[in-house]
C-alpha cells in the first residue's frame, strides 16, 4: 500500500504541473483554456524540434523554451484572448476550443502523425531504491519536486510581489483596478505569458517521460481540469492538493483493478463537485 501511495503522489506531481497553467489563467481572468492539452503537446514538439535542429542538451532546451513560451503567451493574450473577455464566458471557450483543433492539425501537417519523444538517455529509466521492494523513478521525482517549486513560487509571487498584487487586483475587480492606473489587458497578458511558461514546462516533461503525438492533447486537459476543480479555483496549493488527491485515488483504483483507476479519479471528482461545488480549498468565488 505504501508503494501505491508513493506512486500516486508522484503521479499527482505530474497532474499538478499540467494543472497549474490552467489554474493561473482561471484565477486571474476567469478564463478556461480548452487548448491547454494541445498547448502542452505543441511545447513538447517545439522542444523536440529544437533538440533535433540545435542538438542542445535537454536542460538548455528547457531554458530556451521558457522565454519563447512567455512571449507567445503574452502575444496570444494581447492580440487574441483579450478581445474575447467579457461577462460572457462563451467567446473565450469557443476561441480556445478552435485553437485546440488548429494546433492538432498544424502539428500533424508539420510533424506528421508519428509519436516522438525527447531523448534524455539513461534518465528515462533511472530509478532510486528506497527499500528492497520499493524503487521510484528519478524523472517522476524531478517532476514532483518541480511541481512543489512551481506551486510555492506562484503562491509567493501572488502574495509578495507587485505583479502578484496586480494579478489579484484585476482578478478581484477589474474596473477599480483600472481606475487605480493598472492596465488590465497588460496584466492579463503577463499572466498568460506566465501560464504558458508552466504549460511549456509540462510539455517539456511530457516529451521526456513518454511520447507526444498531435492528437494526445485533449486527454491531458481532462486530468488537469479535474485537479483544478477538486482543489478549488484560484488557489495554487489547492490545485497542488487536488492533483495529489487525483493521483493517489487513481493509483489506489489501479491497485485493486486496472479498470478502476481512472474511474476512481472521476468518482472523486464528482463527489467533490457534489459536496463542495467550489472545490476543497477555494479562493475565488464564481
Amino acid at each position, binding site marked *: 500500500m505504501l*508503494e*501505491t501511495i508513493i*506512486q500516486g503522489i508522484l*503521479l499527482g506531481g*505530474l*497532474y499538478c504541473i499540467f494543472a497549474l497553467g490552467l489554474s493561473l489563467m482561471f484565477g486571474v481572468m476567469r478564463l478556461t483554456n480548452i487548448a491547454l492539452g494541445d498547448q502542452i503537446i505543441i511545447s513538447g514538439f517545439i522542444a523536440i524540434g529544437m533538440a533535433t535542429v540545435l542538438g542542445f542538451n535537454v536542460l538548455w532546451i528547457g531554458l530556451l523554451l521558457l522565454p519563447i513560451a512567455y512571449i507567445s503567451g503574452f502575444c496570444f493574450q494581447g492580440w487574441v484572448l483579450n478581445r474575447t473577455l467579457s461577462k460572457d464566458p462563451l467567446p473565450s471557450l469557443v476561441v480556445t476550443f478552435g485553437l485546440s483543433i488548429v494546433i*492538432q*492539425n498544424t502539428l*500533424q501537417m508539420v510533424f*506528421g*502523425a*508519428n*509519436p*516522438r*519523444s525527447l*531523448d534524455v538517455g539513461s534518465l*528515462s*529509466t*533511472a*530509478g532510486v*531504491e528506497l527499500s528492497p521492494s520499493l*524503487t*521510484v*523513478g*528519478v*524523472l*517522476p521525482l524531478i517532476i514532483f519536486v518541480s511541481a512543489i517549486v512551481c506551486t510555492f513560487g506562484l503562491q509567493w509571487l501572488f502574495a509578495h510581489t507587485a505583479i502578484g498584487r496586480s494579478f489579484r487586483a484585476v482578478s478581484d475587480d477589474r474596473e477599480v483596478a483600472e481606475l487605480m492606473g493598472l492596465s488590465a489587458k497588460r496584466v492579463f497578458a503577463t499572466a498568460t505569458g506566465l501560464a504558458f511558461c508552466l504549460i511549456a514546462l509540462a510539455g517539456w516533461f511530457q516529451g521526456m*517521460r*513518454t*511520447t*507526444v*503525438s*498531435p*492528437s*494526445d492533447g485533449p*486527454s491531458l486537459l481532462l*486530468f488537469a481540469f479535474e485537479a483544478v476543480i477538486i482543489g478549488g479555483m484560484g488557489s495554487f496549493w489547492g490545485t497542488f492538493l487536488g492533483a495529489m488527491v487525483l493521483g493517489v485515488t*487513481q*493509483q489506489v483504483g*489501479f*491497485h485493486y*483493478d*486496472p*479498470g478502476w*483507476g*481512472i*474511474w476512481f479519479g472521476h468518482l472523486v471528482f464528482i463527489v467533490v463537485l457534489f459536496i463542495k461545488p467550489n472545490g476543497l480549498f477555494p479562493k475565488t468565488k464564481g
Partner: protein
Amino acid sequence: MSGSPFKDDNKNKAGPNIMKPLSRRSFMKGVFAASAASAVSLKAPFVHASDTLRIGFISPQTGPLAVFAEPDDFTMMQIFQKIKNGVEIDGRRHDVEVIYKDSQSNPSRAATVTAELILKDGVDLVVASSTPATCNPVADQCELYGVPCITNDAPWQPYFFGRNGDPKTGFDWTFHFFWGLEDVVGSFSNLWQQIPTSKAIGTLWPNDEDGNAWGNSDRGFPPVLKQKGFEVIDRGRFQTPINDFSSFISEFRRNDVDIVTGVIAPPDFANFWNQAGQMGFQPKVVTVAKATEFPQAVRAFGERAEGLTVELMWSPSHPFKSSLTGQTARELANDYMATTSRPWTMPLGLKHALFEVAIDVLQRAGSKDPEVIRDAIKATKLDTIVGPVDFQNGPVPSVGKTPLVSGQWQKRGKDLDLVIVENSQAPMIPVEAELLPIQYKS
C-alpha cells in the same frame, strides 16, 4: 440510370452563364459557354463520362489514427502514375478516377463520407483501410447501398463479427483481406517458446476492441497460452490512456514475469517501458502490438527499442511483388524512403495491395455494372505485395487471409531494423534471424 446525372450536371454548368445580367459582350460569352457546354453534354454520356470508372478511397488522414495514413500521399502518387492515361480493358481505354476522403479517425464520419462518395460522386467501387473504426462503417454503408467494397488492415474477426456477419453466407457487397486473431496468437505463442523463460506472461490488454478480443478467455490468447504451458498474469481490462503503470509492473515483478505482451498505443507503451526501467523490471521478451509497429514510433524509444518484438504483416523482406508496378517489397520500401525521406511503414504495403486488388478487379470486370464488379472481386486471385489475395478460400465468406509473421527490432549497423524471427503461420516468408532475449545494461 447512368445517363441522367450527367444531363443534370450540364444544366447546372450552363445555367449561371445565361442568368448573368447582360451586356452585349457577356451575352455573347454566355451563349458561347452555353453552347459549348451543351455540345459536351451531347457527347459526354456516350463517349467519355460513362467510361470513367470511379474509385472512392477512405482513410483516416487526421486524428489519432493518422499514423496509418502516412503512406497515403505516396501510394496515391504511384496509383496516379499508373492510371493517368486510363486503364486498358478489352482493348478499350477507360479513365479511372480516385476520390480520396478523410474519415478523421471517426467511425461516424467514415460512414458519412462513404455515403457522399456513393450518392454524390457516384463511385463504382469503394476501398478503405486502417482499423475496424474505418473498415466497418465504410463496409456497412456499401452493403446498405449495394456498392462493391474492398477493405484491409483490420483483423478479420472484428471486421466480420463486429458487423454481425453470418459465417455461412458472408456479406453480399463487401470484402476484406487481412490476417486474423488465430494468426497473431499462433505466431506469438510460437515465438515465446523459442527461448527459455519463466513461462509467466504479463499482459497489457486495454478495454477496447483489440484488447477485449485478444484477452477474450474463449477465443483470444488465454486458452492457447494455457494449453502451451504458459501462465497468464492478466490484471484485467483498463481504460487508456493511463499515465502510470506502476501497479502493473509491481504485479508482474511479484509473479516473476519474463514475457510482456499487449496491444497499446505508443504513449502508453513509452510510459510502461520507461517505468519498467525505473522500477528495475527486466522482462526477456516484450511483444506489444500497435505501439512498436511503426518505425517512426520505435525511433522515439531510442536505444530501448532494441529487442522488442511485434507482429509483422508486411516488411521489405517479404518475398512478394507488386502486380501494379512490378516492384519487390524491398524496392517499394526503398522507393518510399527515397521519395518521402521517412522510414518505411507497414501500412505502405497494405495501401498498395488495396489498389492492386481494386485495379485488378476493375480490369477484369470491364464494366460499371455493380454486380459484375462484385463478381470480379469474388473471383480475385492476385499475388499482391502483401501476399496472395483470394476471397474464395478464406475462413468465412467475403474474407481473404494474408500471411502474418513476427519480427524483432535488432541492430543492423547503426540503426535498428525489423527482422523476421518467426514464421510458423506463413512458412513461405523466410526467417531472417533468431529471437534474442532483450539485453539490459547494468
